[in-house]
């Protein structure tokens, strides 16, 4: 799964810590998501998308590879 969290974060000028606090996870989790090392749950994906004011598919795209 690929994501554009870092791009949206840069566009909104939000720090990793700010995003983490807003969606209720640790900064390490946001970092792991951005690096592609961790695929968030559906709930967290929705929270992140809602935080940026966009749809889930705008932030996360499924390429059919990798494990959850």
């Amino acid at each position, binding site marked *: 799964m690929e994501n554009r969290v870092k791009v949206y974060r840069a566009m909104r000028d939000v720090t990793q810590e700010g995003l*983490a*606090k807003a969606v*209720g*996870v*640790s*900064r390490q*989790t946001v970092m792991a998501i951005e690096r592609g090392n961790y695929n968030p749950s559906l709930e*967290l994906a929705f929270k992140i998308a809602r935080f940026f004011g966009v749809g889930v598919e705008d932030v996360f795209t499924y390429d059919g590879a990798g494990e959850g």
Partner: protein
Amino acid sequence: MPGKLVSVWTQGFKSLSRRHFFTSLTCAKPPTGILKLTFSKVYITYCIVNFTSVIVLNAMTQKIITVVIVAVTGALIVIGINLGNLYLPVVTLMTGALAIRYMRRRTREVLYDERTTIINQKASAAAIAAFTLGVTVIGWLMMTVGDTIDPAYKGLGYALAFLGCGLLLLRMIFQYYYSWRLGGWDRGE
């Protein structure tokens, strides 16, 4: 006078924050009630009470303090056991657990989320797999060739083998339980 008291309070925190170990301790909110108090023992008590209630830690400091608490608690438990004192390990364990709990509650950052849950699950599964494999191999070795070293090893081998089987049985029971909790039984509907 109130200005002086606030100044004293602020300076107190600033001087604390300069120390290396307390760099992450910050004053969450200024103690407004202090303005009405005069400088006395009451003031000092009030300061201490407020200081402990406004301690806010970051994740790294919380981890360091937790490691220190665990190390000290472990050392005191060993000392207590060696001295034959039963109260020291119990009191130390309870105090350590309370201190760790307090530190977690005073941490401003999120420490546990869905990723840490997955990490814990994977770590637990790997630990169980490694332990079961180790117990099985060592148990089998003791059962088969343990007799040649010491007859007692054979009994120990059986005990380890049963321990491994018990662990696998327990894992199977929990697997069925969580399979039911997180999906229910398949009735072919």
